[in-house]
């Protein structure tokens, strides 16, 4: 299935109905967010909104503040000023694990996995969805056992979905880079997120895997109806799966809109893309090749 097909699946007709009974996912509103690191202004009054059920791209030169933005949304960093509103709460006031419980999941720019098998990592993703405490687990109370089994099945399901089925019981350490990146994605999905933050999901991946990953991301959005905020330097990918794009430069927002609009924005070109002529030659997977 080609990306365009994936794009096509965006219109409700062909997309699998997001089942009615499940509540709609909330929007994420970043409002005048400012982060200062001793003198350095990493984010400068940045505002944008991730509409429910859309794929929203956050792009910009290195050091623009994209990851910082992720870190604030997921509660790892604290904002100097501004707010991040989600499901009626201000995330800048919350601890990471609370934010996670709201259904916000993320991946990391540089892979961060724990030791142990793929299964272990995915089950970690289920942490806030499961209850079994120290006592229950130590005594192997039936409910703990049952819970574990149920969630393990789901984790396996998700692993299959990402093509990690065969690796489910392997130590992540023995996997190649691309697979480990997918494990991270799977772990995030295991949190059954309503909002998924992906920090450079295809960086360092092989082109064919990029296609697959792009499809996966689009499919996740369609199948689960969740919103996705993605940081990626692969413009080809962004152009095809993003519904809207926000561009940062030196912590300031320099453009916001549909991929097509943003791509033509001269500010973006000079700050980030470089001249379109060069794209074809130097930047990877540029769609605009002659």
């Amino acid at each position, binding site marked *: 299935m080609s990306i365009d097909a994936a794009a096509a699946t965006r219109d409700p007709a062909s997309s699998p109905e997001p089942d009615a009974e499940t509540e709609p996912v909330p929007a994420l509103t970043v409002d005048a967010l400012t982060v*200062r*690191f*001793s003198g350095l202004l990493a984010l400068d009054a940045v505002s944008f909104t991730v509409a429910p059920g859309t794929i929203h791209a956050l792009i910009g030169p290195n050091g623009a503040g994209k990851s910082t933005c992720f*870190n604030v949304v*997921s*509660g*790892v*960093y*604290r904002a*100097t000023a501004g707010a991040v509103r989600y499901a009626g709460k201000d995330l*800048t006031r919350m*601890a*990471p*694990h*609370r934010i*996670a*419980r709201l259904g916000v*999941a*993320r991946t*990391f720019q540089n892979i*961060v*996995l*724990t*030791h*142990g*098998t793929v299964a*272990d990592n995915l*089950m*970690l*993703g289920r*942490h*806030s969805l*499961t209850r*079994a*405490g*120290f006592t229950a*687990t*130590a*005594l*192997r109370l039936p409910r*703990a056992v049952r819970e*574990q089994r149920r969630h393990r099945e789901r984790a396996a399901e998700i692993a299959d979905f990402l093509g990690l089925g*065969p*690796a*489910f*019981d*392997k*130590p992540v*350490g*023995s*996997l*190649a880079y691309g*697979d480990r990146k997918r494990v991270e994605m799977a*772990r995030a999905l295991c*949190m059954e997120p309503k909002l998924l933050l992906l920090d450079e999901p295809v960086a360092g991946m092989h082109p064919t895997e990029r296609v697959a990953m792009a499809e996966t991301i689009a499919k996740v959005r369609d199948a689960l109806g969740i919103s996705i905020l993605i940081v990626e330097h692969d413009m080809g990918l962004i152009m095809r799966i993003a519904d809207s794009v926000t561009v940062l430069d030196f912590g300031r927002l320099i453009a916001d809109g549909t991929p097509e609009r943003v791509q033509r924005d001269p500010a973006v070109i000079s700050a980030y893309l470089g001249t379109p002529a060069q794209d074809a030659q130097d930047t990877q997977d540029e769609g605009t090749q002659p």
Partner: protein
Amino acid sequence: MSDTLSPDVSPPPTTGASPDGSGGAAGRRSQAASRAGTVAVAVLLLLVLPFYVSSFWLQTGLFAMAAVIGAIGLNLLSGTTGQLSLGHAFFLAVGAYGYVWLAADPSGTGSAHLYGLGLPPLLALVLAVVLAGVAGGLFSPISGRLRGMYLGIATLALVFLGHHMMLNARDITGGFNGRSVPALEIFGFSFSDTSPDGLAVLGVPFGGLERLWYFGLVLVAVAWLAARNLVRGRPGRALAAVRDSEVAAAVMGVPLSRYRASAFIVSSMYAGAAGALLALVFKRVVPDHFGLLLSIDYLAMIVIGGLGSVGGAVAGAVFVTLIPHLLTKYADHLPLLTAPGTAGSGVTPGDAARYLYGAAIVLVLVFAPGGLAGLAHRRPRRTGDGARRNRRFPLRTRTTSDPQGVEGATPKEHTP
């Protein structure tokens, strides 16, 4: 051992180059079968031992059992959660003295008047474990926010403060002379020599040690299984995540401070149980036993055994406890030694025993760097990330990431 979270001792995976996982699974199954067999044999052996060996062996064995329980606990803390602790001896002391204080009858025995609650021993034992847990909990402000060597030395303080308390809270501890330990008694069945029922099984007089032996076995079994379940279950995964990357753990919904504290509490409770059992074997608790050396011994146990693996902790505990006793017992028979009382300043058996003990440690580490558990199954492992060499046991703090304000407890703050 599959009851582990450390890749270097987990079942052999099929390498990246062959995408089928079945081979490993099969191997695991047969491995499990054979292990079940060996376990069965071992258990049988342990059950009949009291009928054959002298009290020296039983006593040493019981000391080993206590060590096993304590080591499993410390391993949950240091191996699984990656928190270094030199304060284990303190929590053993809490368990030991806790039991005595709770079980002793108020009238008090020995030199001065000593307080006691005179609870039924079994209840007292359970409460002593809880007490140790509470002590661990009280330490959570420290254990919750300190890391690596800072935590290690901070826990070291516990040992000294504890010793100070043991010496000064005389009404409870009996001071430097310690106080005697009320014998265990479960539903009227006493675990002491002095019990009137001259119980004898198959012609073997069943004294306190014989009886305690089986009690010890039960404790160990419970401790072992509980730990295995923990490590394999939800809490175990969370703790391992805290060890490997606090940011990831927090973002996955793990409340860091809470889990760090919990790990400390659980390991303290194990220590408490160990301490109580120790007290029962000693028949008397004295402060000097619960010193720094004891803590260091426990550290040695879990590393020699193989960090992160419950089975390893057991092996290590037995090694560290048994070897010195055996060496001192048999040192007299070694050649070329000047027996005490003979002229000349040659090597006495005592010295020889210590030399051999030191050598034993060194050799074990040289031949089994991954710990005794590692010996069970060596396998290639991808040490892809350079950090991982010193990740599982953050003696070196840089590997335990410290993103600002990840802890739910502490307010978020800026990076400097």
